[in-house]
């Protein structure tokens, strides 16, 4: 085949929620976007590329699923803008994805999209499922009636997908389709999904293409109905939900620990290697301590993030999450939040950013603001490093209690979020949550490929962040702690001299003295550096929380991105201590002591630190996203001051109470 440069064809995927649009997108573009089992969870556009046989590139945009172009929802606006080409060139071809098992409603939606499009292809998804249910749909007749090509596909198995790509490429090059305005089979003009005329038209088309009568799902699916009954039951439903979530987090905790150990070891080796290979001095210190040390503290949590998203994707895909959010509606409503806020809040457990962006699927502005405001309270994965570090300091030899403490942190965050939502309903955002309507997707076997792709893409986003903002902060922190260089103190010089004198007689004792001198020198360096000076300035403010100057420095450094705390602490306590470069972070912090020899973090101050990190809003990207989503600085500033204030008060209280025992 000769390589003829052909300009790429652009197409958009539109359809009702839960028709398998995103699965199709993943199938066509090599696994890049999320599956939407909840209306609008693909509220962001996802772009991918596929190729036809003749080499034509096809750029595919996955648009959010929604029920009608006329609806006043954010998704509908996104789709209309994309179809009209308001934000760029209009797509060459519109690919309408329909659920073959639910054509009655899907055809109504297709009619309204076809009214607007000159080039369109209908992808009849789940056609394998339809034929299993005894539905045979004549795609040729359907194509004639809709006046556009119809391809029967199954996004799950991949059958028909190659055909679809060819059809899209062919349609882009082919003639413009004639929009049908009259005639016996023309869809009624101006009617919207749900209107009587359009319902009748859809029924007529469905009958004409051999759909026949469908077996009523509600009669045959007694098992699914029983599951629904259990999952949405006011007591049993919540109990099941609690068990599922406990299992989810427990498995993340257990499964992730092995890859975490490997990553920790690998970075330790890498740091040591950098130190050996590079000439001793500034560069070696920068690479081994600033860069490798800093990144290791962050990347080590990659397995947990990937696992969380993988398991959430499985739950979403099998249809459980929609039921859970309906069951949660009853609870959320008490605190003035709608059931729809459950998914954004659950996503916030991974990261507040996707959570806040997912609030776009909440149609009511008041409910959206309330959800955005409380979302950062939920323990995101960036807090996990701090939890792991502090809990393993506190309860090193009690894995069961450590697990309970972990759950406690999540519970504290969730409680603070609900409490804040309740307060908001009484003060800044009066009113109650908008009523709940939610489609419950059919139970399906989850698609592992889609789940893996979601985990991979979320992991990629996390790594990119680790490679940019976090790396920059790590290097800055390292520089702040390494400069200005403090000269040898008199005590250290004396020790070194003594060691040199002793080295012939007692080599072991001399080495011990040398090590002691190193430690003293490192402490002097910490106190004298810029970071130490900064810590000294802010130390009084954090004294009620029992924090030492070094911890204060780490806390300050993490005000922009909380995951920096662990790596900052590692850089701070590890600075100048060559012998411990490849030790794990936890051991290093555990062995660190204050100037007076007491542990750097004793029990009360560790508990206070934990409480502080559960509640504080230490994330610059979150503030930026809240600013973007709410359109003013009022909300992010209010949020920041409220959360920081609450965190400080609760931390001080925890320190005081823990100090009594």
């Amino acid at each position: 085949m000769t390589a003829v440069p052909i300009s790429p064809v652009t197409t958009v995927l539109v359809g009702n929620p839960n028709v398998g649009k995103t699965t199709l997108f993943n199938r066509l573009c090599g696994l890049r976007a999320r599956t939407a089992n909840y209306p609008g969870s693909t509220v962001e556009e996802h772009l991918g590329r596929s190729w036809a046989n003749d080499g034509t590139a096809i750029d595919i945009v996955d648009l959010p699923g929604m029920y009608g172009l006329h609806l006043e929802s954010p998704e509908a606006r996104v789709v209309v803008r994309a179809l009209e080409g308001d934000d760029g060139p209009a797509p060459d071809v519109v690919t309408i994805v329909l659920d073959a098992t639910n054509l009655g409603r899907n055809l109504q939606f297709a009619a309204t999209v076809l009214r607007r499009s000159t080039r369109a292809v209908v992808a009849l998804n789940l056609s394998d499922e339809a034929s299993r249910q005894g539905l045979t749909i004549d795609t040729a007749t359907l194509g004639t009636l809709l006046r556009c090509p119809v391809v029967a596909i199954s996004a799950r198995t991949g059958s028909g997908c190659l055909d679809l790509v060819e059809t899209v490429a062919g349609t882009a090059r082919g003639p413009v389709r004639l929009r049908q305005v009259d005639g016996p089979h023309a869809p009624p003009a101006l009617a919207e999904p749900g209107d009587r005329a359009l319902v009748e038209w859809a029924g007529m088309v469905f009958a004409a293409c051999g759909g026949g009568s469908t077996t009523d799902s509600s009669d045959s699916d007694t098992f699914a109905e029983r599951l629904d009954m259990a999952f949405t039951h006011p007591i049993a439903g919540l109990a099941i939900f609690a068990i599922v979530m406990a299992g989810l987090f427990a498995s993340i905790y257990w499964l992730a620990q092995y890859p975490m150990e490997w990553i920790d070891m690998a970075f330790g080796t890498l740091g040591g290697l950098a130190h050996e290979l590079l000439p001793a001095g500034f560069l070696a210190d920068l690479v081994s301590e600033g860069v490798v040390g800093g990144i290791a503290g962050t990347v080590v949590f990659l397995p947990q993030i990937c696992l969380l998203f993988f398991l959430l994707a499985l739950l979403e895909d099998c249809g459980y999450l929609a039921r859970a959010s309906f069951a949660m509606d009853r609870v959320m409503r008490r605190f003035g939040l709608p059931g729809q806020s459950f998914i954004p809040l659950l996503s916030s457990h991974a990261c507040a950013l996707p959570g806040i962006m997912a609030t776009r699927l909440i149609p009511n502005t008041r409910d959206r603001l309330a959800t955005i405001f409380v979302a950062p309270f939920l323990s995101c994965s960036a807090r996990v490093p701090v939890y792991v570090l502090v809990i393993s300091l506190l309860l090193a030899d009690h894995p069961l209690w450590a697990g309970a403490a972990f759950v406690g942190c999540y519970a504290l965050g969730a409680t603070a979020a609900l409490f804040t939502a309740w307060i908001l309903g009484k003060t800044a955002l009066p009113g109650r949550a908008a009523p709940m309507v939610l489609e419950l997707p059919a139970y399906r076997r989850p698609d592992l490929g889609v789940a893996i792709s979601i985990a991979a893409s979320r992991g990629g986003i996390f790594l990119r962040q680790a490679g940019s903002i976090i790396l920059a902060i790590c290097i800055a922190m390292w520089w702040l702690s390494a400069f200005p260089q403090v000269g040898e103190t008199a005590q250290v010089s004396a020790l070194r001299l003594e060691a040199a004198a002793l080295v012939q007689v007692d080599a072991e004792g001399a080495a011990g003295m040398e090590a002691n001198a190193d430690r003293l020198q490192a402490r002097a360096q910490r106190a004298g550096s810029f970071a130490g000076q900064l810590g000294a300035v802010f130390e009084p403010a954090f004294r009620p929380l029992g924090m030492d100057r070094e911890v204060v420095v780490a806390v300050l450094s993490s005000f922009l991105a909380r995951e920096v705390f662990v790596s900052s602490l590692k850089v701070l306590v590890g600075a100048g201590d060559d012998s411990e470069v490849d030790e794990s972070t936890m051991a290093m912090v555990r062995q660190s002591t204050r100037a007076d020899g007491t542990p750097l973090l004793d029990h009360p101050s560790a508990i206070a630190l934990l409480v502080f990190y559960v509640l504080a809003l230490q994330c610059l990207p979150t503030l930026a996203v809240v600013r973007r989503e709410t359109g003013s600085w009022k909300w992010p500033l209010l949020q920041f001051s409220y959360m920081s204030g609450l965190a400080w008060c609760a931390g001080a209280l925890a320190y005081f109470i823990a100090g009594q025992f």
Partner: protein
Amino acid sequence: MGPDEHVCVCHRVSLRKLQGFLAREQPRVPSQLSECLGAGTGCGWCRSELERLWTRWSEGSEPTIDEDWSRYLGRREMDKKRKNSVPLAIANQSQYDGSMPAVKAPEPIRIPLSQLKPGQRARVDCTTLDDLPSGDRCLLAAMGLGDQCELKRCSGHACIIAVDRTKIAIGPWLADRVFVEPIDDPTTRP
């Protein structure tokens, strides 16, 4: 009961409308309240409530109903269950005592979705959705709850309905406000 909640559930006549009618038209007998959008001429259950409302008003006190609306609907449902061997409209017709105008034809019985029994089938009457916020109404229609569509309530505590092949879960607030006509009530079947 709030001013926008319905005293006459069949014809969706709100308390506010009735209060306005009383103040404006100064009815001499309670049956005149039926001129307010046909209040009391559906299933007839609310006639006693309308009479009580009129009595309060004629005695010079505020014409209100202290009962919570959901409790009010529950009481209505209970009364209907008690009489479930006879179709309600006819049962009420036979008890007609002259204080209200006669029901001309058996009006279809409309009940909120929340009152539909599990397994029961019903038909949505689009005109009953007019009181909902337009966004909710359009969304329900586009999700499949269009005019005259048939639905079935699934078993279970939560209000989950099956329309065609779609299952839609509806929160309690909305389920109290979407009215449907039951098609075949298993309890009234001979």
